[in-house]
Protein backbone atom coordinates (compact mmCIF):
# COMPACT_ATOMS: atom_id res chain seq x y z
CA UNK A 1 0.00 0.00 0.00
CA UNK A 2 2.93 2.32 0.61
CA UNK A 3 3.90 2.05 -3.03
CA UNK A 4 0.31 2.94 -3.97
CA UNK A 5 0.34 6.13 -1.90
CA UNK A 6 3.83 6.95 -3.13
CA UNK A 7 2.59 6.83 -6.72
CA UNK A 8 -0.43 8.97 -5.86
CA UNK A 9 1.70 11.54 -4.04
CA UNK A 10 4.28 11.65 -6.82
CA UNK A 11 1.70 12.13 -9.56
CA UNK A 12 -0.08 14.84 -7.58
CA UNK A 13 3.19 16.67 -6.99
CA UNK A 14 4.06 16.45 -10.67
CA UNK A 15 0.61 17.74 -11.60
CA UNK A 16 0.92 20.77 -9.32
CA UNK A 17 4.27 21.63 -10.85
CA UNK A 18 2.61 21.83 -14.26
CA UNK A 19 -0.50 23.78 -13.38
CA UNK A 20 -1.25 24.89 -16.93
CA UNK A 21 -1.89 21.29 -18.00
CA UNK A 22 -4.29 20.71 -15.16
CA UNK A 23 -6.15 23.95 -15.71
CA UNK A 24 -6.52 23.50 -19.46
CA UNK A 25 -9.04 20.69 -18.97
CA UNK A 26 -11.06 22.76 -16.54
CA UNK A 27 -10.95 25.79 -18.78
CA UNK A 28 -12.15 23.64 -21.67
CA UNK A 29 -15.13 22.56 -19.57
CA UNK A 30 -16.07 26.15 -18.76
CA UNK A 31 -15.74 27.31 -22.36
CA UNK A 32 -17.74 24.43 -23.80
CA UNK A 33 -20.52 24.97 -21.27
CA UNK A 34 -20.62 28.65 -22.26
CA UNK A 35 -20.81 27.87 -25.98
CA UNK A 36 -24.07 25.92 -25.80
CA UNK A 37 -26.33 28.80 -24.66
CA UNK A 38 -24.72 30.96 -27.34
CA UNK A 39 -25.57 28.41 -30.00
CA UNK A 40 -29.02 27.42 -28.78
CA UNK A 41 -30.37 30.65 -27.35
CA UNK A 42 -30.83 32.08 -23.89
CA UNK A 43 -34.37 30.88 -23.11
CA UNK A 44 -34.33 29.64 -19.52
CA UNK A 45 -36.75 26.78 -20.20
CA UNK A 46 -34.60 25.29 -22.96
CA UNK A 47 -31.43 25.78 -20.96
CA UNK A 48 -32.89 24.11 -17.91
CA UNK A 49 -33.86 21.21 -20.11
CA UNK A 50 -30.51 20.69 -21.83
CA UNK A 51 -28.31 21.78 -18.92
CA UNK A 52 -27.59 18.40 -17.28
CA UNK A 53 -26.81 16.73 -20.60
CA UNK A 54 -24.59 19.52 -21.82
CA UNK A 55 -22.64 19.67 -18.58
CA UNK A 56 -22.22 15.91 -18.55
CA UNK A 57 -20.96 15.81 -22.13
CA UNK A 58 -18.65 18.74 -21.35
CA UNK A 59 -17.24 17.00 -18.29
CA UNK A 60 -16.85 13.78 -20.26
CA UNK A 61 -14.91 15.50 -23.04
CA UNK A 62 -12.81 17.48 -20.57
CA UNK A 63 -11.79 14.38 -18.67
CA UNK A 64 -11.00 12.67 -21.98
CA UNK A 65 -8.76 15.54 -23.07
CA UNK A 66 -6.41 15.00 -20.16
CA UNK A 67 -6.16 11.23 -20.68
CA UNK A 68 -3.13 11.17 -23.03
CA UNK A 69 -1.03 12.68 -20.22
CA UNK A 70 -1.83 9.83 -17.86
CA UNK A 71 1.06 7.63 -18.96
CA UNK A 72 2.72 9.74 -21.67
CA UNK A 73 5.28 11.64 -19.57
CA UNK A 74 6.26 8.61 -17.51
CA UNK A 75 6.65 6.65 -20.69
CA UNK A 76 8.90 9.30 -22.24
CA UNK A 77 11.29 9.62 -19.30
CA UNK A 78 11.40 5.86 -18.68
CA UNK A 79 9.85 5.83 -15.22
CA UNK A 80 6.95 3.78 -16.55
CA UNK A 81 9.34 0.92 -17.26
CA UNK A 82 10.55 1.13 -13.69
CA UNK A 83 6.98 0.87 -12.48
CA UNK A 84 6.48 -2.22 -14.63
CA UNK A 85 9.71 -3.75 -13.38
CA UNK A 86 9.10 -2.94 -9.73
CA UNK A 87 8.31 -5.80 -7.32
CA UNK A 88 4.96 -4.24 -6.41
CA UNK A 89 1.91 -5.44 -8.35
CA UNK A 90 1.54 -3.26 -11.41
CA UNK A 91 -2.24 -3.12 -11.07
CA UNK A 92 -1.93 -1.38 -7.70
CA UNK A 93 0.51 1.20 -9.06
CA UNK A 94 -1.72 1.83 -12.07
CA UNK A 95 -4.68 2.29 -9.73
CA UNK A 96 -2.61 4.92 -7.93
CA UNK A 97 -1.97 6.72 -11.19
CA UNK A 98 -5.66 6.57 -12.09
CA UNK A 99 -6.64 7.93 -8.67
CA UNK A 100 -4.14 10.78 -8.97
CA UNK A 101 -5.41 11.55 -12.45
CA UNK A 102 -8.98 11.65 -11.22
CA UNK A 103 -8.09 13.87 -8.25
CA UNK A 104 -6.42 16.31 -10.62
CA UNK A 105 -8.75 16.28 -13.59
CA UNK A 106 -12.02 14.71 -12.44
CA UNK A 107 -12.66 16.12 -8.99
CA UNK A 108 -12.31 19.79 -10.08
CA UNK A 109 -14.97 19.12 -12.73
CA UNK A 110 -17.28 17.82 -10.02
CA UNK A 111 -16.70 20.95 -7.97
CA UNK A 112 -17.14 23.27 -10.90
CA UNK A 113 -20.23 21.66 -12.41
CA UNK A 114 -22.81 23.11 -9.95
CA UNK A 115 -21.42 26.58 -10.61
CA UNK A 116 -21.83 26.12 -14.35
CA UNK A 117 -25.25 24.60 -13.67
CA UNK A 118 -26.32 28.02 -12.35
CA UNK A 119 -25.72 29.41 -15.83
CA UNK A 120 -28.26 26.90 -17.08
CA UNK A 121 -30.75 27.94 -14.43
CA UNK A 122 -30.82 24.50 -12.80
CA UNK A 123 -32.70 24.29 -9.47
CA UNK A 124 -30.63 23.55 -6.38
CA UNK A 125 -31.63 19.90 -5.97
CA UNK A 126 -30.66 19.27 -9.61
CA UNK A 127 -27.31 20.95 -8.94
CA UNK A 128 -26.69 18.61 -6.03
CA UNK A 129 -27.63 15.58 -8.09
CA UNK A 130 -25.40 16.78 -10.95
CA UNK A 131 -22.45 16.98 -8.57
CA UNK A 132 -23.25 13.58 -7.07
CA UNK A 133 -23.62 11.85 -10.44
CA UNK A 134 -20.37 13.39 -11.63
CA UNK A 135 -18.69 12.37 -8.39
CA UNK A 136 -19.64 8.75 -9.08
CA UNK A 137 -19.32 8.92 -12.86
CA UNK A 138 -16.01 10.68 -13.49
CA UNK A 139 -13.94 7.97 -11.71
CA UNK A 140 -15.50 5.43 -14.10
CA UNK A 141 -14.49 7.66 -16.99
CA UNK A 142 -10.93 7.80 -15.65
CA UNK A 143 -10.85 4.02 -15.22
CA UNK A 144 -12.12 3.24 -18.72
CA UNK A 145 -10.09 6.04 -20.26
CA UNK A 146 -6.91 4.75 -18.66
CA UNK A 147 -7.22 1.55 -20.72
CA UNK A 148 -7.42 3.65 -23.87
CA UNK A 149 -4.47 5.77 -22.74
CA UNK A 150 -2.37 2.67 -22.06
CA UNK A 151 -3.23 1.11 -25.40
CA UNK A 152 -2.41 4.21 -27.45
CA UNK A 153 0.87 4.92 -25.68
CA UNK A 154 3.32 6.33 -28.20
CA UNK A 155 1.01 5.61 -31.11
CA UNK A 156 0.60 7.97 -34.06
CA UNK A 157 -2.31 10.38 -33.59
CA UNK A 158 -2.83 9.10 -30.05
CA UNK A 159 -5.18 11.84 -28.86
CA UNK A 160 -7.82 11.38 -31.54
CA UNK A 161 -7.43 7.63 -31.32
CA UNK A 162 -8.23 7.66 -27.60
CA UNK A 163 -11.44 9.50 -28.36
CA UNK A 164 -12.42 6.92 -30.94
CA UNK A 165 -11.66 4.02 -28.62
CA UNK A 166 -13.06 5.36 -25.41
CA UNK A 167 -16.10 7.47 -26.29
CA UNK A 168 -18.32 4.51 -27.27
CA UNK A 169 -17.42 2.86 -23.97
CA UNK A 170 -18.40 6.04 -22.09
CA UNK A 171 -22.00 5.75 -23.29
CA UNK A 172 -23.45 3.86 -20.28
CA UNK A 173 -21.89 6.32 -17.81
CA UNK A 174 -23.25 9.26 -19.76
CA UNK A 175 -26.71 7.71 -20.00
CA UNK A 176 -27.04 7.12 -16.27
CA UNK A 177 -25.10 10.20 -15.16
CA UNK A 178 -27.16 12.69 -17.15
CA UNK A 179 -30.21 10.50 -16.60
CA UNK A 180 -29.91 10.84 -12.83
CA UNK A 181 -30.38 14.62 -13.01
CA UNK A 182 -33.13 14.26 -15.56
CA UNK A 183 -34.96 11.71 -13.43
CA UNK A 184 -34.75 13.94 -10.36
CA UNK A 185 -36.09 16.96 -12.24
CA UNK A 186 -38.99 15.00 -13.66
CA UNK A 187 -39.92 13.79 -10.20
CA UNK A 188 -39.09 10.12 -10.74
CA UNK A 189 -36.34 10.02 -8.17
CA UNK A 190 -32.73 9.30 -9.04
CA UNK A 191 -32.01 6.48 -6.64
CA UNK A 192 -31.92 3.80 -9.35
CA UNK A 193 -29.53 5.84 -11.48
CA UNK A 194 -27.22 6.49 -8.56
CA UNK A 195 -27.21 2.79 -7.66
CA UNK A 196 -26.32 1.85 -11.22
CA UNK A 197 -23.56 4.45 -11.38
CA UNK A 198 -22.14 2.94 -8.22
CA UNK A 199 -22.56 -0.52 -9.70
CA UNK A 200 -20.49 0.60 -12.68
CA UNK A 201 -17.87 2.29 -10.52
CA UNK A 202 -16.98 -0.77 -8.45
CA UNK A 203 -16.19 -3.22 -11.27
CA UNK A 204 -14.45 -0.43 -13.19
CA UNK A 205 -12.12 0.22 -10.25
CA UNK A 206 -11.52 -3.49 -9.90
CA UNK A 207 -10.96 -4.49 -13.53
CA UNK A 208 -9.50 -1.38 -15.11
CA UNK A 209 -6.06 -1.50 -13.40
CA UNK A 210 -5.80 -5.11 -14.47
CA UNK A 211 -6.61 -4.36 -18.11
CA UNK A 212 -4.35 -1.28 -17.98
CA UNK A 213 -1.38 -3.29 -16.79
CA UNK A 214 -1.94 -5.79 -19.59
CA UNK A 215 -2.08 -2.90 -22.06
CA UNK A 216 1.05 -1.28 -20.60
CA UNK A 217 2.93 -4.57 -20.85
CA UNK A 218 1.89 -4.83 -24.50
CA UNK A 219 3.00 -1.25 -25.13
CA UNK A 220 6.38 -1.66 -23.45
CA UNK A 221 7.14 -5.10 -24.80
Amino acid at each position, binding site marked *: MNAFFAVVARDLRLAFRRKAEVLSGLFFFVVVAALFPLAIGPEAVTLRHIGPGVLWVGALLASMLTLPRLFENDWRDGSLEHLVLSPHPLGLLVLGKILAHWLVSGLPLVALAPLLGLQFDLPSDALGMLALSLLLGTPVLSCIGA*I*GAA*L*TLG*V*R*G*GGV*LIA*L*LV*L*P*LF*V*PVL*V*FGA*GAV*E*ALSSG*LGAQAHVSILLA*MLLPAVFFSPW*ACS*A*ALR*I*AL*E
Partner: protein
Amino acid sequence: MTMRWFYYAAPQTFYGLAGRLWPWLAALALALTLAGLWVGFALAPADAQQGEGYRIIFVHVPVSWMSMVIYLAMAFWAVLGLTFNTRLSGMMTRALAPTGAMFAFLSLWTGALWGKPMWGTWWVWDARLTSELILFFLYLGYIALTSAIDDVRRADRAGALIAIVGAINVPIIYFSVKWWNTLHQGASVSLTRSPSMAQLMLWGMLLMALAMWVYTLAIVCYRVRTLIIERERHTDWVQALPEVAGAKA
Protein backbone atom coordinates in the same frame (compact mmCIF):
# COMPACT_ATOMS: atom_id res chain seq x y z
CA MET B 1 -8.92 -34.17 -34.22
CA THR B 2 -6.99 -31.96 -31.81
CA MET B 3 -3.80 -32.60 -33.70
CA ARG B 4 -5.31 -31.35 -36.90
CA TRP B 5 -6.56 -28.12 -35.32
CA PHE B 6 -3.13 -27.24 -34.14
CA TYR B 7 -1.80 -28.28 -37.50
CA TYR B 8 -3.87 -25.57 -39.14
CA ALA B 9 -2.95 -23.02 -36.47
CA ALA B 10 0.33 -22.45 -38.31
CA PRO B 11 0.02 -19.68 -40.92
CA GLN B 12 1.88 -21.75 -43.47
CA THR B 13 -0.60 -24.63 -43.46
CA PHE B 14 -3.64 -22.41 -43.03
CA TYR B 15 -2.61 -20.43 -46.08
CA GLY B 16 -3.05 -23.53 -48.21
CA LEU B 17 -6.31 -24.52 -46.56
CA ALA B 18 -7.80 -21.04 -46.92
CA GLY B 19 -6.67 -20.95 -50.54
CA ARG B 20 -8.52 -24.17 -51.27
CA LEU B 21 -11.61 -23.12 -49.33
CA TRP B 22 -12.37 -19.58 -50.35
CA PRO B 23 -13.36 -20.09 -54.02
CA TRP B 24 -15.86 -22.77 -53.00
CA LEU B 25 -17.22 -20.66 -50.17
CA ALA B 26 -17.52 -17.65 -52.44
CA ALA B 27 -19.40 -19.67 -55.05
CA LEU B 28 -21.67 -21.12 -52.38
CA ALA B 29 -22.32 -17.63 -50.96
CA LEU B 30 -23.26 -16.38 -54.41
CA ALA B 31 -25.61 -19.31 -54.99
CA LEU B 32 -27.24 -18.88 -51.58
CA THR B 33 -27.63 -15.13 -52.10
CA LEU B 34 -29.31 -15.66 -55.45
CA ALA B 35 -31.59 -18.31 -53.98
CA GLY B 36 -32.39 -16.16 -50.94
CA LEU B 37 -33.13 -13.09 -53.05
CA TRP B 38 -35.27 -15.15 -55.39
CA VAL B 39 -37.32 -16.54 -52.53
CA GLY B 40 -37.48 -13.17 -50.82
CA PHE B 41 -38.34 -11.01 -53.81
CA ALA B 42 -40.14 -13.36 -56.17
CA LEU B 43 -41.82 -16.09 -54.13
CA ALA B 44 -42.61 -14.57 -50.74
CA PRO B 45 -46.00 -12.83 -50.57
CA ALA B 46 -46.32 -9.13 -49.82
CA ASP B 47 -46.83 -8.34 -46.16
CA ALA B 48 -50.40 -7.61 -45.09
CA GLN B 49 -49.48 -4.42 -43.24
CA GLN B 50 -46.22 -3.32 -44.74
CA GLY B 51 -46.78 -4.13 -48.41
CA GLU B 52 -43.70 -4.57 -50.56
CA GLY B 53 -41.53 -2.36 -48.43
CA TYR B 54 -40.94 -5.07 -45.88
CA ARG B 55 -38.70 -6.96 -48.31
CA ILE B 56 -35.66 -5.06 -47.09
CA ILE B 57 -35.66 -7.41 -44.09
CA PHE B 58 -34.19 -10.11 -46.30
CA VAL B 59 -31.04 -8.04 -46.32
CA HIS B 60 -31.43 -6.08 -43.12
CA VAL B 61 -31.94 -8.90 -40.62
CA PRO B 62 -29.10 -11.20 -41.79
CA VAL B 63 -26.76 -8.22 -42.01
CA SER B 64 -27.58 -7.14 -38.45
CA TRP B 65 -27.08 -10.66 -37.15
CA MET B 66 -23.70 -10.87 -38.81
CA SER B 67 -22.56 -7.53 -37.42
CA MET B 68 -23.08 -8.90 -33.92
CA VAL B 69 -21.80 -12.41 -34.56
CA ILE B 70 -18.60 -11.08 -36.09
CA TYR B 71 -17.85 -8.97 -33.03
CA LEU B 72 -18.24 -12.07 -30.87
CA ALA B 73 -15.98 -14.00 -33.24
CA MET B 74 -13.40 -11.22 -32.97
CA ALA B 75 -13.53 -11.38 -29.19
CA PHE B 76 -13.16 -15.17 -29.41
CA TRP B 77 -10.02 -14.91 -31.56
CA ALA B 78 -8.75 -12.11 -29.32
CA VAL B 79 -8.99 -14.32 -26.22
CA LEU B 80 -7.34 -17.16 -28.11
CA GLY B 81 -4.57 -14.87 -29.32
CA LEU B 82 -3.83 -13.42 -25.89
CA THR B 83 -3.87 -16.78 -24.09
CA PHE B 84 -2.13 -19.05 -26.61
CA ASN B 85 -0.04 -16.37 -28.28
CA THR B 86 -0.77 -17.71 -31.74
CA ARG B 87 0.00 -15.54 -34.71
CA LEU B 88 -2.99 -16.68 -36.71
CA SER B 89 -5.51 -15.49 -34.09
CA GLY B 90 -4.41 -11.90 -34.48
CA MET B 91 -4.70 -12.17 -38.23
CA MET B 92 -8.19 -13.66 -37.94
CA THR B 93 -9.30 -10.78 -35.71
CA ARG B 94 -7.84 -8.28 -38.14
CA ALA B 95 -9.47 -10.02 -41.10
CA LEU B 96 -12.91 -10.06 -39.47
CA ALA B 97 -13.02 -6.40 -38.46
CA PRO B 98 -13.60 -4.72 -41.85
CA THR B 99 -16.38 -7.16 -42.72
CA GLY B 100 -18.02 -6.60 -39.35
CA ALA B 101 -17.84 -2.84 -39.79
CA MET B 102 -19.33 -3.17 -43.25
CA PHE B 103 -22.21 -5.27 -41.95
CA ALA B 104 -22.87 -2.83 -39.11
CA PHE B 105 -22.95 0.04 -41.58
CA LEU B 106 -25.23 -1.88 -43.95
CA SER B 107 -27.50 -2.72 -41.06
CA LEU B 108 -27.88 0.96 -40.19
CA TRP B 109 -28.29 1.92 -43.84
CA THR B 110 -30.91 -0.70 -44.71
CA GLY B 111 -32.65 0.03 -41.43
CA ALA B 112 -32.92 3.68 -42.43
CA LEU B 113 -34.28 2.69 -45.84
CA TRP B 114 -36.92 0.59 -44.13
CA GLY B 115 -37.66 3.17 -41.48
CA LYS B 116 -38.50 5.98 -43.89
CA PRO B 117 -41.59 4.35 -45.48
CA MET B 118 -42.64 2.44 -42.32
CA TRP B 119 -42.04 4.90 -39.52
CA GLY B 120 -41.84 8.03 -41.65
CA THR B 121 -38.36 8.84 -40.44
CA TRP B 122 -34.83 7.81 -41.33
CA TRP B 123 -33.71 7.47 -37.77
CA VAL B 124 -35.19 7.08 -34.31
CA TRP B 125 -33.22 6.90 -31.08
CA ASP B 126 -34.44 3.40 -30.46
CA ALA B 127 -32.35 1.14 -28.24
CA ARG B 128 -31.47 -1.25 -31.03
CA LEU B 129 -30.54 1.43 -33.52
CA THR B 130 -28.43 3.27 -31.01
CA SER B 131 -26.55 0.21 -29.85
CA GLU B 132 -25.96 -0.86 -33.44
CA LEU B 133 -24.48 2.58 -34.07
CA ILE B 134 -22.22 2.20 -31.06
CA LEU B 135 -21.21 -1.26 -32.26
CA PHE B 136 -20.20 0.38 -35.53
CA PHE B 137 -18.07 2.85 -33.56
CA LEU B 138 -16.44 -0.04 -31.69
CA TYR B 139 -15.45 -1.62 -35.01
CA LEU B 140 -14.01 1.67 -36.21
CA GLY B 141 -12.07 2.08 -32.96
CA TYR B 142 -10.57 -1.39 -33.34
CA ILE B 143 -9.59 -0.75 -36.96
CA ALA B 144 -8.15 2.68 -36.13
CA LEU B 145 -6.08 1.33 -33.24
CA THR B 146 -4.65 -1.64 -35.11
CA SER B 147 -3.81 0.40 -38.18
CA ALA B 148 -2.14 3.13 -36.12
CA ILE B 149 0.42 0.76 -34.58
CA ASP B 150 3.22 -0.21 -36.92
CA ASP B 151 4.59 -3.10 -34.91
CA VAL B 152 2.42 -6.03 -35.95
CA ARG B 153 2.71 -7.99 -32.69
CA ARG B 154 1.81 -4.99 -30.58
CA ALA B 155 -1.04 -4.03 -32.90
CA ASP B 156 -2.52 -7.53 -32.65
CA ARG B 157 -2.29 -7.68 -28.88
CA ALA B 158 -3.54 -4.15 -28.31
CA GLY B 159 -6.39 -4.80 -30.72
CA ALA B 160 -7.23 -8.04 -28.95
CA LEU B 161 -7.45 -6.22 -25.61
CA ILE B 162 -9.77 -3.51 -26.94
CA ALA B 163 -11.89 -6.14 -28.68
CA ILE B 164 -12.38 -7.96 -25.38
CA VAL B 165 -13.09 -4.76 -23.46
CA GLY B 166 -15.61 -3.84 -26.14
CA ALA B 167 -17.27 -7.26 -26.04
CA ILE B 168 -17.74 -6.98 -22.28
CA ASN B 169 -19.25 -3.55 -22.77
CA VAL B 170 -21.67 -4.40 -25.56
CA PRO B 171 -24.39 -5.85 -23.27
CA ILE B 172 -23.94 -2.99 -20.79
CA ILE B 173 -24.30 -0.47 -23.59
CA TYR B 174 -27.34 -2.24 -24.97
CA PHE B 175 -29.19 -2.31 -21.67
CA SER B 176 -28.24 1.22 -20.69
CA VAL B 177 -29.44 2.57 -24.00
CA LYS B 178 -32.61 0.53 -23.70
CA TRP B 179 -33.33 1.90 -20.26
CA TRP B 180 -32.46 5.42 -21.32
CA ASN B 181 -34.94 5.21 -24.17
CA THR B 182 -37.80 3.80 -22.13
CA LEU B 183 -37.24 6.47 -19.50
CA HIS B 184 -37.22 9.32 -21.95
CA GLN B 185 -40.33 8.56 -23.92
CA GLY B 186 -42.72 5.76 -24.45
CA ALA B 187 -41.55 3.66 -27.37
CA SER B 188 -43.47 5.18 -30.24
CA VAL B 189 -42.34 2.42 -32.55
CA SER B 190 -41.48 -1.08 -31.56
CA LEU B 191 -39.27 -3.33 -33.61
CA THR B 192 -40.53 -6.44 -31.92
CA ARG B 193 -43.45 -7.88 -33.77
CA SER B 194 -45.02 -11.22 -33.22
CA PRO B 195 -43.02 -13.76 -35.20
CA SER B 196 -46.03 -14.82 -37.23
CA MET B 197 -44.13 -14.84 -40.47
CA ALA B 198 -45.18 -16.65 -43.57
CA GLN B 199 -43.17 -19.80 -44.12
CA LEU B 200 -41.63 -18.46 -47.32
CA MET B 201 -40.50 -15.23 -45.67
CA LEU B 202 -38.72 -17.23 -43.00
CA TRP B 203 -37.03 -19.37 -45.63
CA GLY B 204 -35.88 -16.36 -47.57
CA MET B 205 -34.42 -14.83 -44.46
CA LEU B 206 -32.69 -18.03 -43.40
CA LEU B 207 -31.19 -18.50 -46.86
CA MET B 208 -29.88 -14.94 -46.81
CA ALA B 209 -28.48 -15.40 -43.30
CA LEU B 210 -26.68 -18.52 -44.44
CA ALA B 211 -25.39 -16.68 -47.49
CA MET B 212 -23.96 -13.92 -45.27
CA TRP B 213 -22.27 -16.49 -43.04
CA VAL B 214 -20.65 -18.22 -45.99
CA TYR B 215 -19.69 -14.89 -47.55
CA THR B 216 -18.00 -13.89 -44.29
CA LEU B 217 -16.07 -17.15 -44.16
CA ALA B 218 -14.98 -16.72 -47.77
CA ILE B 219 -13.86 -13.11 -47.43
CA VAL B 220 -12.07 -13.85 -44.14
CA CYS B 221 -10.19 -16.74 -45.74
CA TYR B 222 -9.22 -14.49 -48.60
CA ARG B 223 -8.15 -11.62 -46.34
CA VAL B 224 -6.21 -13.87 -44.00
CA ARG B 225 -4.24 -15.17 -46.97
CA THR B 226 -3.27 -11.61 -47.84
CA LEU B 227 -2.29 -10.89 -44.25
CA ILE B 228 -0.26 -14.10 -44.00
CA ILE B 229 1.63 -13.40 -47.18
CA GLU B 230 2.28 -9.82 -46.09
CA ARG B 231 3.57 -10.72 -42.64
CA GLU B 232 5.51 -13.82 -43.57
CA ARG B 233 7.08 -12.36 -46.69
CA HIS B 234 10.57 -12.79 -45.25
CA THR B 235 10.14 -16.56 -44.93
CA ASP B 236 11.33 -19.09 -47.46
CA TRP B 237 7.98 -20.78 -47.93
CA VAL B 238 6.31 -17.52 -48.98
CA GLN B 239 9.13 -16.77 -51.39
CA ALA B 240 8.76 -20.27 -52.83
CA LEU B 241 5.01 -19.89 -53.45
CA PRO B 242 4.24 -19.97 -57.17
CA GLU B 243 2.19 -16.75 -56.96
CA VAL B 244 5.07 -14.91 -55.27
CA ALA B 245 7.91 -16.40 -57.26
CA GLY B 246 5.94 -16.02 -60.48
CA ALA B 247 5.22 -12.34 -59.82
CA LYS B 248 8.89 -11.63 -59.30
CA ALA B 249 10.05 -13.29 -62.46
